[in-house]
């Protein structure tokens, strides 16, 4: 291929990426609009627009700005955080299955949260702190146990699955000891949902995410080099293990923050990046589109969990992401025939 040929192919890919990004932005905006407008009290679009720019009536203001907007903003933030975290894990470990929700990192957060609710009798911000530490601890344990002169994606996943079962046993212990009502409360937390969102927690999440995402953006050039393979990357002057470890730490940070505030939300981290990559019809990192896909998934799951279930049933959003995400994983397993580079 001539130089101009490469150039035009690259330009086409970039144009496609631009269109996809725009499309995803529209989807997220539409879902957000729906989430803000629809409910027991449904607003018309003009009313919603007026409320959002500060010209709404008293009750509209309360419902939209106090009740519904925090939920939507939190959904967008954590959806993006989970998605970017999953994309980083999958890329760094070169395995589409190595996502934080599959390898037990969310499980660590769940156990810590259940412990703080059931044994220590805590609530609110303290539970968030425990969940955050739980995710970090389990991530460190997986990394240390999977390390054998380097990190291997398969070993990482299987060590994670083993730990996930251990974590499950601890949860089982906590669940059988607690008061049944508190256990139910802990279960709701463990599934994950946007119900508890408020502006002060959003501020914390937003600031932390901003810091983490800026660092990811700075390092993403090196990540692209890493994708060429460890030897090539080392040859190009990238310190492979140090870069990988730094990015893994950032990825763990992203998922830990999200989980700490809304709970695990099964499979969002796992499915977002593959969907984004498929939309872009190209390899590459696709971090921005992954983040948008994640946000859209969480908003859609939350909307469906609130409004679309039969019999007025309302459940936490994490239940829907779990039920929808698992078949995707199974489909991936059943159709992947390449045992080498891409995993599965």
């Amino acid at each position, binding site marked *: 291929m001539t130089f101009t040929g490469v150039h035009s192919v690259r330009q086409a890919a970039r144009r496609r990426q631009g269109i996809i990004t725009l499309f995803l932005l529209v989807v997220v905006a539409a879902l957000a609009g729906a989430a803000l407008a629809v409910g027991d009290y449904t607003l018309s679009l003009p009313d919603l627009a007026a409320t959002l720019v500060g010209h709404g009536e008293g009750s509209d203001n309360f419902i939209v700005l106090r009740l519904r907007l925090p939920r939507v903003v939190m959904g967008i933030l954590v959806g993006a955080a989970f998605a970017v975290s999953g994309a980083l894990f999958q890329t760094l470990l070169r395995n589409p*299955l190595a996502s934080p929700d*599959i390898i037990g990192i969310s499980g660590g957060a769940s156990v810590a949260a259940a412990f703080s609710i059931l044994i220590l009798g805590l609530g609110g911000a303290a539970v968030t702190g425990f969940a955050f530490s739980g995710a970090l601890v389990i991530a460190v344990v997986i990394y240390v*146990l*999977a390390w*054998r002169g380097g990190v*291997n994606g*398969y*070993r990482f*996943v*299987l*060590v994670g*699955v*083993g*730990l*996930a*079962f*251990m974590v*499950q*046993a*601890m949860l*089982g*212990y906590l*669940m*059988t000891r607690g008061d*049944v*009502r508190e*256990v*139910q409360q802990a*279960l*709701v937390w*463990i*599934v994950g949902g946007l119900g508890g969102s408020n502006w002060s927690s959003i501020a914390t999440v937003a600031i932390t995410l901003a810091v983490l995402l800026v660092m990811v953006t700075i390092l993403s050039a090196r990540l692209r080099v890493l994708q060429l393979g460890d030897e090539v990357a080392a040859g190009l002057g990238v310190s492979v293990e140090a870069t990988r470890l730094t990015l893994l730490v950032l990825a763990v940070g992203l998922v830990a923050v999200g989980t700490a505030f809304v709970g695990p939300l*099964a*499979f969002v981290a796992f499915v977002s990046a593959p969907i984004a990559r498929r939309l872009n019809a190209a390899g590459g990192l696709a971090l921005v589109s992954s983040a948008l896909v994640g946000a859209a998934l969480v908003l859609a799951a939350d909307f469906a969990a609130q409004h679309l279930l039969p019999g007025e*049933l309302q*459940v*936490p959003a*994490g*239940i*829907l992401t*779990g*039920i929808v*995400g*698992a*078949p995707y*994983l*199974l489909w991936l*397993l*059943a*159709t*992947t*025939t390449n*045992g080498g580079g891409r*995993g*599965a």
Partner: protein
Amino acid sequence: MPAVLAEKSQRTVLRQRRLWGLVAASVLLGVAILLSLALGARHIALAEVWAALFSPIDGNNDHLVVRELRMPRTIVGVVAGAALALAGTIMQGITRNPLADPGLLGVNAGASLFVVLAISLLGITSPSGYIWFAFVGAAAATCLVYGIGAAGREGATPLKLALAGTAITAAITSIITVILITDTDTLGAYRFWSVGSLASRDLGTVTTLLPFLAMGVLLAAAGGRMLNLLSLGDDVAQGLGQNLSVARIVAGVAVVVLCGSATALAGPLVFVGLVVPHIVRPLTGPDYRWILAFSAIAGPILLLAADVVGRMVVRPAELEAGLVVALVGAPIMIALVRRVKRADL
């Protein structure tokens, strides 16, 4: 000539090691059974245990505890331990997958879903009422996970099976959770079943499941030669006259009835089937007939030991055997993962 002699003597050594190993394992099992009868919130001297078994006195509380509480749970432990260990060995053999385990394959999730539905929709709340639901759910999940894990070109690799199990478990867990967070009564009954325990099971359950257990054990006993052939690879096994689909069906039926019965008896238990074959292999070598025989003895030892430990660590309360097994089994699984070479995963 000397080489042949050396090989012959090596074989004799191996055979003797296996025979003595089997004797030692049986003795160990006897000890585990005695400990399971004697230890607990109430310590009972071995002489009293003996008397309770062979010349019980009416109205003697120690004898009552041994006969009514500890004997049933010991029997359930022996039966469920053997069934899970045999099922794990067969799974590892048929899939040539060192990490196969009934619990990792979503069997427990399937059983759990059916039990939750039984509690929530039909109002059944006793462990003996759960058995058929647990059995059918376990069987259905085994078929589903194995079918999905074995699809695709390279068949049932450890990673695919583990993840198919994880995915099924996650989806089913979501459904179970919907029920549990909307229905406090169901949660109250289900959570105690869900951790896997040998306590307060009644012996009637064992009798009910006996035909299935017998069938599973017979299939396992007959399957040793078959698994040996399969361990040489599908092509070689076929060349030596083994019909592959017959082998897969026999193994599949054995796994389903063994796992189903064990889960129906003791609730969801993980890691027994995974760990036991690896523990016995250094003694037996690669011959599956011996691995199966040893597993059938070592499985009960492991499960009874877990149960006894669970009774001792937080006396007078108890830690369920399922929890102890999981806490001990996970480190062993991780050690195995670290040992397995990349190519085998």
